[in-house]
């Protein structure tokens, strides 16, 4: 396979699965032109006048949608590890004898290990989405027929909008829907909160199938997916396992080391002056993230400070802050627990968002760049602040990108990470896979110290005199190598065999993932 060196100095292919791709050019350097992609014209006269689009089963809906070999099928991941529908979907596709499907999920989860049999037998040709856990391992070992493509949530929206990916059939799991196809995720036994990751699919796919386990009479209100975009509605017994869709309770980490990192994050926001009335921040559901929000909350109460909005991943902790008046709004991208789902139903300050609003390259501006501070994780960060979130230091692909690349456009980007995990250094000389360029990463907060990107002179000045352990990234790197027993060896990979590519937010290829040699 012919590889070229892109603007980040990484070797990437110029053709992926038979289609031309553009190597990464630099942050905001790629300026595509032309028109957005258009879905085929449909006529209402071809749809039932009584608005009843219910067909008898998924097989029927796929057949009516014209399912053929080699098509692109999209799904969303709001059901997370509780998703049963996607597995049923591919069982059905297999039983129809269809081959070479491009599966285009907004993310995959360990529950989708079920699909490995279909990757093996050729039902699925390759995955464009995230390859988590078992699917990542499968891909890394070079077993997938095509090349995997990893995109951020915003990158997925971009690829649909500019026609890079043409979705033939979108299958949308809907916890509540009506026969017309109006659908919502904020209620029903499989409630997952919002359905933002399916928004683009509903608008741009050739055919849209809504699958629900809670069919109610028209109208399903409020609707997050508009029935006017929907071709068919299918009712099934169960979309998935509710206990794995949202957790009953989200727990804050008990790890003293992660709590220490979380404390440093909150302290950093205070000492750097970011924490002030009307500010905004982003917090996910990871252990450290939840804890940092709680420490921040204490500080906000003490200083009588209120946020204008908090961007989540909503959890009961963010809901409490909304209900206690510590923030005017939650801008929710995905809902992690039952309290988040309840709040979304009941509170007008709890807003649904989608990758269209949060970050997409073809949008006329994005919410991501309005956020004062975002706190993210990473699998590796290197001496140039380049960061990795998809592979581990052993070369294996184990995580998707999610909204991570998109959050990089926040005003201050903080990576809150341990400096090493069980003798695996997280601060390394060079990342295994480049997923975000160092120029967008502002601060690294570890249990061993805080490193500020030298280009953020304002932040370096702001924390002068603070008693936070400010160090250079090189100092942390040296300390970690000393603890772990020297510089770690690099994974053995076949540099001629690309198993997946990493897309930047603009659709260009920022790096390749290579086959792991056993």
């Amino acid at each position: 396979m012919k590889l070229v060196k892109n603007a980040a100095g990484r070797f990437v292919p110029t053709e992926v699965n038979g289609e031309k791709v553009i190597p990464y050019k630099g942050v905001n350097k790629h300026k595509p032109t032309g028109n957005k992609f258009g879905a085929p014209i449909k006529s209402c006269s071809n749809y039932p006048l009584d608005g009843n689009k219910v067909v008898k089963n998924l097989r029927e809906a796929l057949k009516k949608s014209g399912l053929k070999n080699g098509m692109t099928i999209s799904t969303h991941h709001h059901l997370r590890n509780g998703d049963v529908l996607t597995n049923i979907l591919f069982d059905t596709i297999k039983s129809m004898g269809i081959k070479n499907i491009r599966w285009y999920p907004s993310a995959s989860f360990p529950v989708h290990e079920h699909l490995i049999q279909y990757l093996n037998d050729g039902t699925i040709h390759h995955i464009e989405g995230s390859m988590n856990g078992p699917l990542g391992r499968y891909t890394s070992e070079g077993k997938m027929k095509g090349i995997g493509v990893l995109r951020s949530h915003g990158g997925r929206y971009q690829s649909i909008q500019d026609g890079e990916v043409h979705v033939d059939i979108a299958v949308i799991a809907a916890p509540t829907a009506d026969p017309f196809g109006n659908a919502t995720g904020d209620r029903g036994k499989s409630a997952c909160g919002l359905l933002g990751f399916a928004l683009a699919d509903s608008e741009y796919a050739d055919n849209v199938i809504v699958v629900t386990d809670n069919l109610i009479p028209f109208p399903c209100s409020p609707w997050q997916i508009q029935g006017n975009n929907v071709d068919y509605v299918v009712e099934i017994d169960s979309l998935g396992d509710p206990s794995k869709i949202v957790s009953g309770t989200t727990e804050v980490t008990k790890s003293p080391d992660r709590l220490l990192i979380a404390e440093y994050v909150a302290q950093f926001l205070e000492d750097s002056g970011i924490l002030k009335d009307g500010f905004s921040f982003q917090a996910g559901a990871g252990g450290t993230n939840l804890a940092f929000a709680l420490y921040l909350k204490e500080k906000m109460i003490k200083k009588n400070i209120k946020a204008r909005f908090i961007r989540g991943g909503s959890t009961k902790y963010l809901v409490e802050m909304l209900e206690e008046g510590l923030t005017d709004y939650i801008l929710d991208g995905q809902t992690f627990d039952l309290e988040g789902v309840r709040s979304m139903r009941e509170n007008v300050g709890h807003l649904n968002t989608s990758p269209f609003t949060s970050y997409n390259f073809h949008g006329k501006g994005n919410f991501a760049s309005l956020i004062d501070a975002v706190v993210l994780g990473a699998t590796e960060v290197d001496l140039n602040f380049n960061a990795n979130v998809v592979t581990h230091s052993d070369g294996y692909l184990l995580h998707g990108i999610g909204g991570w690349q998109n959050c990089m456009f926040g005003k201050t980007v903080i990576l809150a990470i341990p400096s090493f995990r069980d003798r695996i250094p997280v601060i390394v000389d060079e990342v295994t896979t480049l997923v975000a360029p160092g120029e967008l990463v502002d601060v690294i907060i570890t249990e061993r110290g805080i490193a500020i990107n030298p280009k953020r002179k304002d932040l370096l000045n702001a924390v002068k005199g603070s008693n936070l352990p400010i160090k250079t990234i090189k100092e942390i790197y040296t300390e970690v190598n000393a603890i772990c027993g020297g510089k770690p060896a690099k994974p053995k990979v076949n540099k001629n065999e690309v198993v997946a590519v990493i897309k930047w937010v603009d659709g260009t290829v920022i790096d390749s993932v290579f086959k792991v040699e056993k």
Partner: protein
Amino acid sequence: MAKAIAGQKGDKVRSDCYIELTTNNNGGIKLNLKSKVDVMYGESIKSTILEMCEFFGIKNAEIIVEDYGALPSILMARFELAVKRLNLGLDKEYLPVFNKKNNYKTSKEKLRRSRLYLPGNEPKFYPNAGLHKPDAIILDLEDSVAPSEKDAAQLIVRNALRTIDFYGAERMVRINQLPLGLDELKYIIPHNVHVILIPKVETAEQILQAEEKVNELKMAFKIKNDIFFMPIIESALGVINAYSIASASKLNCALAIGLEDYTADIGAQRTNEGTESFFARAMLVNAAKAAGIQAIDTVFSDVNDMEGLKNAVLEAKGLGFEGKGCIHPRQIQVVHNAFAPTESEIEKAQKIVAAFEEAKAKGLGVVSIGSKMIDAPIVKRAVNTLKIAELMNAIK
């Protein structure tokens, strides 16, 4: 053919390893390594094991290593243990390189508000322990180590003292009850231990035995730095003999109390109010102060009850204790905050010290504030209060 096992295995094991060593009469060294960090450190692990085989004169053996990310010095301790469990190389020690950062010293008067217990056979907690800024860490060879793993903990603690950076925390080791504890001193004395906690002390004689052994080892290993004792009183007899124990040796820097064993010994239930141990604790404080050393309170064992911990420290402080044991890093800041002088205490101390300085400048023998005479111990306490206050501000 002989076989020995060392270390831990299983899904929950982190930062440790499991070793099976079977010696043979021929066949050379066969090493079977399974490691979570194989890609990054597999070669390094293999070369360490082979080097150790050579060091201990093992020529023919089958070695199975299941590694869960053990740091190098932990891997070494585990393999050395397997070797020694085969009664090989008993006269030799395979010592990892001493980390230069671990050369710092301690002093008898050092603050000992918090001491964090680290189980002696559970190395995963070590590398980050010092980051939580306890006044001291304790590598524990006693109650947290199963009787069958005492030999394992001795090597782990020895190697930890040499290699792990505890970031300035005072380096303490709790040995086992004498006489076993005396045999353990050789694993710690040569490796810059600062304070030895001697459990279940009942007589001054026991302290003298420990002192003799320590001096012998210091001489043998040419150790110059100060090593202090913190006897732990855990029985009725110990309480009754508290003063003679506290004053038995100039190496004593503090006297601590352990209430679990004490309450069992006097046949009382341990309660939250602590009425049953009031006498013992008051006695201990008086014995320590009479001997001019620190009085240190027992551990607080409910790691989720931070409010309870705070109240327990305030109560201990009220009785005259100067330190509290911690079993979880999150307890440390709570303990420090509760021991911190209050604003009015600081203000009063500043006035006293100012008056003292003024009197000194004027060449006056008597210090007074208004009409009140100030004694030397009061000045000393005020100086101490300000010292703690300064340290707290440095942390906040």
